């Protein structure tokens, strides 16, 4: 455990990367997932099909394989994200970070889509029908009537999906991102005599992140509750 306390900067920096991965992938996956959910309930059959194929394809693929595809296959197809080169403070966001964000976002979007779709299904059909009856087009029905209610109903499953994302970011540790688990590996390698304490410290870091997020999700759920 002392090994972690002796180098707290490195510990926090590593969790910083975890947090950045989560935040960026969280926002992107929510946006893409919402779009996919709209596809899956849209009146256009091609879009419905595209949404269904995407969800089934991506949801059935292990995350490591998605990472592997973007890390080892994509460069052969000319997709390498080498243009990404952002530096904020001591953090570097380069091609490896981008690969991680893209993989995590694409993967999580499938789950977000299903969580939101469950929320949409929870909105009584009469709501959509009434919206149609007053002459709203599909986008209007979705944006002004269905999705606001659907989001409220999908807060609990969405929170679960995003919590899973926090922990899924750890897959990036073997794909060039210096996040928490990769830091843990360096520390256990240098101080094998403190293995258990190091594990506990890093597990604790994840618990704090997840608890923080759950707390926010809970507050949101309470605030948005339809009276």
């Amino acid at each position: 455990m002392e090994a972690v306390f002796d180098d707290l900067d490195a510990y926090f920096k590593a969790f910083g990367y975890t947090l950045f991965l989560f935040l960026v992938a969280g926002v992107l996956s929510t946006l893409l997932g919402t779009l996919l959910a709209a596809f899956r309930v849209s009146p256009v059959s091609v879009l419905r099909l595209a949404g269904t194929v995407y969800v089934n394809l991506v949801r059935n693929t292990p995350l490591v394989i998605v990472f592997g595809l973007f890390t080892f296959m994509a460069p052969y197809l000319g997709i390498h994200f080498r243009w990404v080169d952002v530096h904020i403070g001591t953090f570097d966001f380069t091609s490896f970070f981008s690969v991680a964000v893209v993989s995590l976002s694409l993967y999580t979007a499938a789950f977000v889509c299903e969580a939101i779709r469950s929320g949409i299904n929870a909105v009584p059909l009469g709501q959509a029908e009434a919206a149609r009856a007053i002459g709203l087009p599909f986008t209007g029905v979705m944006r002004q009537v269905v999705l606001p209610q659907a989001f409220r109903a999908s807060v609990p499953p969405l929170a679960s999906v995003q919590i899973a994302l926090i922990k899924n970011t750890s897959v990036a540790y073997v794909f060039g991102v210096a996040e928490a688990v990769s830091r843990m590996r360096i520390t256990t390698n240098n101080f094998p005599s403190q293995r258990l304490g190091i594990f506990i410290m890093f597990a604790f870091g994840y618990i704090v992140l997840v608890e923080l997020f759950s707390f926010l999700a809970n507050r949101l759920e309470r605030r948005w509750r339809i009276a």
Partner: protein
Amino acid sequence: MRRSRIMALVAGTVLALTATACGGSAGDDEGGRDVDAEENAAEKFDDGTRMKELAEDGKIIIGVKYDQPGLGFKDAASDIPTGFDIEIAKLLAADLGIDPASANVTWEETVSDNREPFLTTGKVDIVLASYSITPDRRKVVGQTGPYMLTGQQLLVKADSDVDSIEDLAGKEVCSVTGSTSIDKINEKGAKGVGFESYSECVQKVLDGSVEGMSTDGTILAGFAAQNEGQLKVVGEPFSTERIGVGYSQDHPEMCEWINTVLEDAFEDGSWAEAFELTLGPSGVETPDPPALDACPAA
């Protein structure tokens, strides 16, 4: 019609060529040194020692690397891994009277992070997996040797003008997640990015995602030899790693035994021969055998 037939012909030829190329290299990798098992080996060990148990059982489990050409490398086609670590392990097994080429020796893949847990839980009997000796590791497991000295160097593309790690300050350099090499890269001002294995790093160097990778020179030499003309090793070593044999602290008596076997191998030239055979082809010159650490008093 005609065009597609020509294409088919080209595709066929390419396939045939790759097939022969694969076949050729598989043949070269075969073997290593032939080490004969000692007869009645169990007699020379005292009762109650771990060596006696192993020799009487006639079985040993050795933790090695599978992904380091020249040190510990196993391709899909062969049963026994090849490399310098393996050659030293063979000598140890043979001294116990166990035929290294037989199925009585289990070559267990032991990645860096598994080395201490595998030893402490008894999943493997000894570890020869480019295992550098460090004071903190010695708190958990027994380590003796070294049987090889190496230092961290840099592997870059053959056409790169990078000469040393200093040229890559602020740039990303690949190595294995959690390895000591990553720490050293960061200390030198470059930015270590971690992957699961060295071969994945090699790929990242080849596809240009990183400018170089860094770890022990002996490992890099193996990859440079495997990708001749595409990769080269550059720079002076910027660290010293003392590669040793790991054993469990439950059996401190193994230390003296390992040292005796190593000492014999240094003297009768089998150490140098093994070095020549495994690391020689990658262009590493055979050095003098290193001085062994004394075993801790039992």
